[in-house]
């Protein structure tokens, strides 16, 4: 194995570690939200520092590889993809932290019914599945798995679109819970952004493996590029 191959392998391994951490954060965030577990939420908030530390390290590793090895072709695409995926993961970490902060601030009388009527839990699980799939795609360098997320994202979009109406109806019936309902709307928007981050990462994986640029193309086109 050449020196560059060894460095690229390490870079991928570190990316997978960061990714696994972020996906675990997502899971803990979901449990904290469903159970209104403030301790678990605080754990998520504290762990966000590790995500940030990983981001800085991966940025530096990519910089070193560019400077020392002048990678080309698939190696160059790999490092470019990792650089962007790193950014996506850090933002996902921020999103989860935001959800955890909501849990730490929420009133214990929070009405869990609003979670059901907005399908927030279903949305959260779909977001986690998307992130798991994209990680799997990166690990196995499998673009077919990466492409799955474009379809999965439709569920998140659907729930997000219907969330306004669902929450408005809930608020009309339960005006005393308006604050919690609005917080939940914010969480739904955050989960929709997690879906966007997962899609972006899928696009980067396809760019890395197939050298195809799917940015700014329609969903139909992205799925066609199979």
């Amino acid at each position, binding site marked *: 194995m*050449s*020196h*560059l191959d060894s460095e690229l392998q390490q870079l991928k391994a570190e990316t997978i570690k960061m990714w696994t951490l972020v996906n675990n954060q997502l899971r803990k965030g979901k449990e904290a939200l469903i159970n209104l577990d403030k301790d678990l939420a605080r754990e998520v908030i504290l762990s966000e520092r590790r995500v940030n530390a990983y981001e800085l390290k991966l940025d530096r590793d990519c*910089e*070193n590889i560019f*400077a*020392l*090895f*002048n990678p080309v072709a698939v190696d160059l695409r790999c490092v470019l993809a990792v650089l962007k995926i790193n950014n996506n993961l850090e933002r996902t970490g921020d999103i989860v932290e935001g959800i955890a902060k909501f849990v730490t601030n929420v009133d214990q009388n929070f009405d869990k019914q609003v979670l059901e009527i907005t399908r927030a839990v279903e949305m959260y699980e779909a977001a986690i599945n998307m992130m798991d799939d994209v990680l799997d795609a990166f690990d196995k360098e499998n673009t077919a798995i990466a492409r799955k997320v474009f379809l999965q994202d439709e569920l998140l979009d659907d729930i997000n679109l219907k969330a306004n109406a669902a929450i408005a109806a809930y608020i009309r019936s339960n005006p005393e819970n308006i604050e919690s309902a609005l917080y939940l709307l914010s969480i739904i928007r955050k989960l929709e952004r997690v879906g966007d981050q997962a899609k972006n990462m899928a696009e980067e994986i396809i760019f890395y493996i197939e050298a195809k640029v799917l940015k700014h193309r329609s969903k139909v086109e992205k799925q066609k590029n199979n």
Partner: protein
Amino acid sequence: MYKIESKNVDFFYGPSQALKNINIAIKSNTVTALIGPSGCGKSTYLRLFNRMNDLIDNTRISGSVLIDDEDIYAKGINVDSLRKKVGMVFQKPNPFPKTIFENVAYGLRVNGISDKKFIEERVETSIKQVALWDEVKDKLKKSAFELSGGQQQRLCIARALAIQPSVILMDEPTSALDPISTAKIEALIYELKTKYTIVIVTHNMQQAGRVSDTTAFFYMGELIEHDNTKTIFTNPKIERTQNYITGRFG
């Protein structure tokens, strides 16, 4: 703590000063690249470590050069023993006009080793270390000149390894080779550093980036900067270093 150290080293070719107050400390099992424009003193500095400059008339050194904490320019130093400990590979592959086998065995024989089995084992080990064995094992009795340039260079490295040095000096070892051979030599350098301390002069900055742990930038006989290669190539401390590595001069 350090495998090689030069302390306040000045070097002169007659009245002309080629090296000025060079202070470098090199750790064991690392690769140190010496970079800089032509005539800056890189090769002169490299040749200090095996006293090859002694072969040039009218040269003078001051300061100290230590290998394993021993001043190699002290009185009483056995230069032949030094050159066993410090092997060298040159820019142009220079196999002896002998068979492939004898090229590698030669160093052992001149050092008094005559045990046939020992020599055979050491030759095989050395040639395997440079990833050349599969290519030559069936033609060890053929002339070394029948090998390609890249193979000859790897044979020269095997020749140096056969007498089990602890330091290997490489003076532009790939500048005469094609890209594929260059890549093989660079991969070899990366593997060899687990067992040896390597100092390499290179004009190819990208090569310095690929193979070395630390890089020393020379300019007009002076050491401008010596640091981790990552630092030199991402954020050098001295502006002149940055100008050189970005191609703005030199």
